[in-house]
């Protein structure tokens, strides 16, 4: 009997919601534009990270044909420097320049020459390019020295007793983590916002269109009405999360992470894991939305109050982003806080704490139950019905 009534409420609210164009747009458009903006942002980041793409234009004063030819060979474009490069850089008209000997080098000369790299170290944007040119100069040095040594019948190894190599210890996953750090926030925001419009209509909307009194005249306990509405809101939130995840899946598949030497592969298994972790968030979100909604006189009021739900996932996000490695196992028991870490691990294909899922689900239940209990208590108050 109770189940039939619960199912009647659930089905009616779903039917009502699906026909509500305004709320449908409010629910299903944000995941689309959030993922599109995310993909554009990551795409641009990859573009700027990629050294192949970087365009260095070097102003050169003086002459050293062999050296400039080597630079051009290494994709540096050469332009004529102004007459006083030092003054130009000091004045900020030029970012950096290479000053060579003013006289051309006679062919076959073995005299050491001077190349001066001029730049203003307080100018942040020159460091990448200057470093690139500097390392090319050192490499040119080594190459020319090796040729000279070889011409005298000696091994080029003699002039390079130390071979310098660089190894970036950041693993692919860690680099990927840096880039994918915003994805958990995006997913949590989808989960928190998914049913805002629907929940507002189910509560404040009932008050606004004066259908609440008639609804309460039926022999149905308050908690059946609230739980039926809640189940409908949860179902809608899960649909929004699914859309968000599907779009992310597509975006992550097509983004050219390999161009910056990263291997980001988020498989179906990880996606299912993320979904299961987000279900309890949907429970909490829908319950809080209904509790806030029933206190609101109108649909607009309700949306204003629910705005803060969107801010909620940002708090743990900033805590975790500004303190990486802060993770403690009790975080799992604080809704939304543990999710930051666990969702990121799932995205990167890393192991997650054993207790993650039980903690998420068990901590969500009392919070949701409390919010639903509050909503069910409010709904029959004369002030809510007639106020």
């Amino acid at each position, binding site marked *: *009997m109770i189940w*039939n*009534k619960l199912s*009647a*409420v659930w089905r*009616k609210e779903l*039917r*009502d919601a699906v*026909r*509500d164009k305004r709320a449908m747009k409010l629910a299903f458009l944000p995941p689309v534009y959030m993922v599109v903006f995310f993909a554009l942002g990551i795409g641009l980041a990859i573009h700027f990270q990629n050294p192949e793409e970087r365009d260095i234009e070097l102003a050169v004063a003086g002459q050293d044909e062999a050296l400039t030819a080597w630079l051009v060979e290494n994709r540096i474009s050469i332009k004529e420097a102004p007459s006083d490069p030092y003054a130009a850089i000091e004045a900020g008209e030029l970012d950096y320049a290479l000053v060579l000997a003013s006289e051309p080098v006679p062919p076959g000369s073995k005299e050491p020459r001077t190349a001066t790299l001029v730049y203003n170290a307080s100018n942040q944007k020159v460091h990448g390019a200057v470093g690139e040119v500097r390392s090319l100069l050192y490499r040119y040095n080594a190459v020319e020295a090796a040729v000279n040594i070889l011409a005298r019948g000696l091994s080029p190894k003699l002039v390079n007793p130390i071979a310098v190599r660089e190894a970036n210890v950041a693993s692919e996953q860690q680099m990927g983590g840096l880039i994918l750090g915003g994805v958990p926030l995006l997913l949590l925001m989808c989960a928190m916002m998914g049913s805002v419009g629907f929940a507002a209509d189910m509560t404040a909307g*009932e008050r606004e*269109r*004066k*259908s*609440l*009194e*008639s*609804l*309460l*005249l*039926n*022999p*149905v*306990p308050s908690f059946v009405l609230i739980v039926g509405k809640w189940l409908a809101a949860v179902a809608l939130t899960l649909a929004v999360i699914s859309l968000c995840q599907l779009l992310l899946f597509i975006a992550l598949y097509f983004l050219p992470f390999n161009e910056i030497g990263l291997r980001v592969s988020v498989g179906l298994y990880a996606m299912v894991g993320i979904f299961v972790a987000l279900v309890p968030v949907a429970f909490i979100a829908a319950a809080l939305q209904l509790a806030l909604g029933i206190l609101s006189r109108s649909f607009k009021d309700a949306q204003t109050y629910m705005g803060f739900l969107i801010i909620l996932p940002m708090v743990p996000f900033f805590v975790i982003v500004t303190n990486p490695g802060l993770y403690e196992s009790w975080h799992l028991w604080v809704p939304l806080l543990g999710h930051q870490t666990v969702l990121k691990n799932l995205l990167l294909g890393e192991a997650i704490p054993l207790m993650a899922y039980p903690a998420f689900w068990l901590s969500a239940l009392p919070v949701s139950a409390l919010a639903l209990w509050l909503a069910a208590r409010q709904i*029959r108050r*004369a002030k809510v*019905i007639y106020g």
Partner: protein
Amino acid sequence: MIEIEQISKTFGTLQALDKVSMTIGNGEIVGLLGLNGAGKSTLMRLIYGLLNPDSGQIHIDGVHVQKQPEKARSLLGVLPDNAGLYKRLTARENIAYFARLQGMSEWDIQVNTDELIDILGMESIAERHADGFSLGERMKTALARAIVHRPGHILLDEPTNGLDVITTRAVRALLRQQKAEGRSVLFSSHLMYEVENLCDRVLVIAGGRLVAGGSVEDVIAAAGCASLEDAFVSLSQKEGIA
């Protein structure tokens, strides 16, 4: 049978109802007359249990409204004032939703809904979304929704307010049919001809108190007036001055 005993209700300092008692028997149509703010809606809300009285008690077929509110509500069909519909549902879906909440079987819902659609002349709007319904169409849908579970007692708060003559006639016909089937009807109104036309008994409420009750003739005689309207005005004003 609806039995109301010594019901009082105050809102802040306002005494909305003061020791009101009345009985509404099966198979009778009772009109509740009163000026705006006389306490008609408050009395209705107390009967269907969305407000609680400060003192006194109400029984519906022996069921105590405050102690067994859900059981009591299943015995009632209520059309509150300003009954809002779900705009994105059709008239039929609006009716069926409340029927399911009353615990009816799908078969009964189908049969009863068809019958009400027929009596109230709602064939043209049954499959239309309620958004854009006229006042009369909204009222008919809300009325059908209120009585689809064939309750023993029907409470209507100003049901014919603002309706055109055709719709008013349809509502009247429906109420007479309900009476013929042995159901009691209590409806509030401030339209005299409506009450004279339809009611077996009239209750006049003024300043939160029941000031007269009985057949239309009894009320006119008690007030010593020539018409129900004169009697109503005289009774209401007397209470107002006192």
